């Protein structure tokens, strides 16, 4: 693929004898929304963790924006422009919403130890700018007025949105969302889907989504990749995936395929 933002080649992860990801080739084209689906335990989150440096692949390579990222530490991935959220929310529970977003900006700020002690005009300006930008991001994610609320005191939906705000604060080129709509009601889910589509259009982002809710996946994705038992079993547009026999088999069992054909 000529303009792939993210590309994996034969990416493999074994935990002891268990093969969690079996030589997965995968691409996220620039400016697209790609969904990664699969039954529980298919290795989606493991795959995600390899794309963010949290896990080290057993074999294979990760390329991002033309650079080989394999075996780099997690912060290097963020530095190059991969922002992520977590399946089980991992906010900094005892920091305020604003501080959470400011931590997300860490890689984009420069002030070092000595400048912080002297508080040079440059650092002061940078901090002020960062705070303003953080407030804008909070407003963008529907968290206006929640700046000073401690992370764990936010409602569930707000925590999910704050995770997205924090990920956006890293100024990513690629946003990785791990089951972002888990636990949301249908209306919230619909709003969130629109929000993701809007982000892609307004901010020149590509999005990689792990999702269980098929309405979200089919509604917003440009491409869908299906994992089962760590193997990529299908890839294509949402329409193609809906008709793919192997996918139906993976989700519903072999008998279902027999009936539908």
């Amino acid at each position: 693929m000529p303009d792939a933002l993210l590309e994996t080649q034969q990416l493999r992860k074994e935990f002891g004898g268990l093969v969690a990801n079996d030589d997965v080739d995968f691409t996220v084209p620039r400016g697209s929304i790609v969904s990664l689906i699969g039954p529980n335990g298919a290795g989606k989150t493991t795959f995600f963790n390899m794309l963010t440096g949290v896990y080290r692949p057993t074999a294979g390579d990760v390329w991002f924006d033309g650079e080989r990222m394999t075996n780099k530490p997690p912060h290097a991935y963020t530095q190059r422009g991969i922002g992520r959220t977590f399946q089980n929310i991992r906010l900094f529970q005892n920091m305020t919403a604003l501080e959470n977003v400011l931590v997300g900006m860490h890689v984009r700020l420069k002030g070092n130890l000595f400048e912080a002690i002297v508080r040079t005009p440059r650092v002061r300006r940078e901090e002020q700018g960062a705070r303003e930008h953080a407030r804008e991001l909070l407003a963008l994610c529907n968290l206006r007025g929640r700046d000073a609320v401690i992370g764990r005191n936010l409602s569930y939906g707000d925590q999910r949105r704050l995770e997205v705000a924090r990920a956006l604060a890293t100024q990513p080129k690629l946003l990785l969302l791990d089951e972002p709509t888990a636990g949301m009601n249908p209306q919230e889910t619909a709003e969130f889907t629109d929000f993701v589509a809007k982000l892609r259009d307004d901010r020149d982002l590509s999005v990689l989504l792990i999702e269980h809710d098929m309405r979200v996946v089919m509604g917003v994705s440009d491409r869908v990749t299906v994992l089962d038992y760590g193997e990529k079993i299908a890839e294509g547009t949402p329409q193609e995936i809906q008709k793919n026999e192997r996918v139906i088999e993976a989700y519903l069992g072999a008998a279902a395929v027999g009936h539908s054909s």
Partner: protein
Amino acid sequence: MRRRISPYWWRALGAAGLTQPRWLALSPTKRRAIKTTTWVAILLILIALFGVWKATAFALAAVIGLLIVPAWNRIPYGKFFVPVAVLGIFVCYPWYGASMPQLPIFGPFPQQSTVVVMLIFSMMALGLNFVVGYAGLLDLGYVAFYAMGAYMAGWFASNQFAKQHLDIGAVGLFPGWTGYHITIWLVLLMAGIATAIIGVIIGLPTLRLRGDYLAIVTLGFGEIMPQVARNGDNLFGTGFNLTNGTGGITPIDGPGFGNWAQHNLHLPANYLNAANFDSLFLWTAIVLVGITIFCSMRLRDSRLGRAWIAIREDETAAAAMGIPLMRTKTWAYATGAFFGGVAGAYYASYKSGAFPDDFFFNISVFILCMVILGGMGNIWGVIFGACFLAYLDREGLANVGAWFNSHFHTNLNVPLYEFGIYGVIIVVVMLFRPEGLIPSQRRAAELHEGVHDEPLYDTETAGA
């Protein structure tokens, strides 16, 4: 605050007519005032019960009340009131300290020399607070930095190296001196930097470890340093005398500004010759602690400070947000080491010596106790913990012991049980107030709610 009080408390208080809603309906200032008054009243009753009633108890209660009751942060410039009051209390100590009446139980006010030590330990505790309080890394070998600082003063401000002959602004040199003699002001800075470098060297291999493992490795380094000091009089069998072995390095030059400054600026030429020797060291220590506080606050509110707190809260999430774990932790280590080194060098200059027996493991625990007792992550709490424990160590325990023996007709040598008593204090604090006496709000929340502590990613990727 409500969460902290267990329902049992409320059941008892409810029986007395004070229900939770009624209490919460009061204004925060009133609640604070009532709480403080209650504590002071309990304190006074206890003092009265033990038969040591003194007029000073009233004065003490009044001071506590004045400092704690009003919500100073609501008044313009109010937030400066307590720090300025504390600063005043310390700066003026040489003038009133000796003439203060005896306190109940604790006896006379501490001597100036004790206050100097209290301040030096405050500085060390603030240094350790960077590591333990901010970044959440348990360091059981902090004494290594203290030792390094002290020996830096020993090497660069004494006659230690007999073959060398170098004098950079040193004061109080005797005829026939040898070795390096650099002015203490510069040595303090050098000690800080050298210790920070040692901190980085120790940190790089160890900071990949988490929690208990890190604690054990730092414990090891804390043991290595004094051993090197003790056996360093014949380094690698070459006959090179680095540390002068068990004898330690002594005497070490005192601080001072030289004769020119004394004539023209009325600054003391040499602290060690001055009549108000202790007061000079006291005031200088106040300046050093002030610098440490300033750096602590600036860093806490900076990009780096946020990163430290983020690592403490959730390492995995912090790494995913682009915080380089190793580098950030190493900075915390180096910063903490810097202040430990400066404090160590200053202490060596005050004692005019660096002795290996001062750097036992128990000092590491002692400083850690100060941080825990006062309140991890809170600058004022840490200073309080450091002052209180250092005071107990130098004078307090002996005084309390004497009081105890005379009232209960026992014959205990209380200072002998020093570390047992600290242990009990720490256990009690951890049980009833794990956030310390003066906690940082964030830290209090963590300790009551718990934080994420799940295994991080593969250890081999942890490097940065």
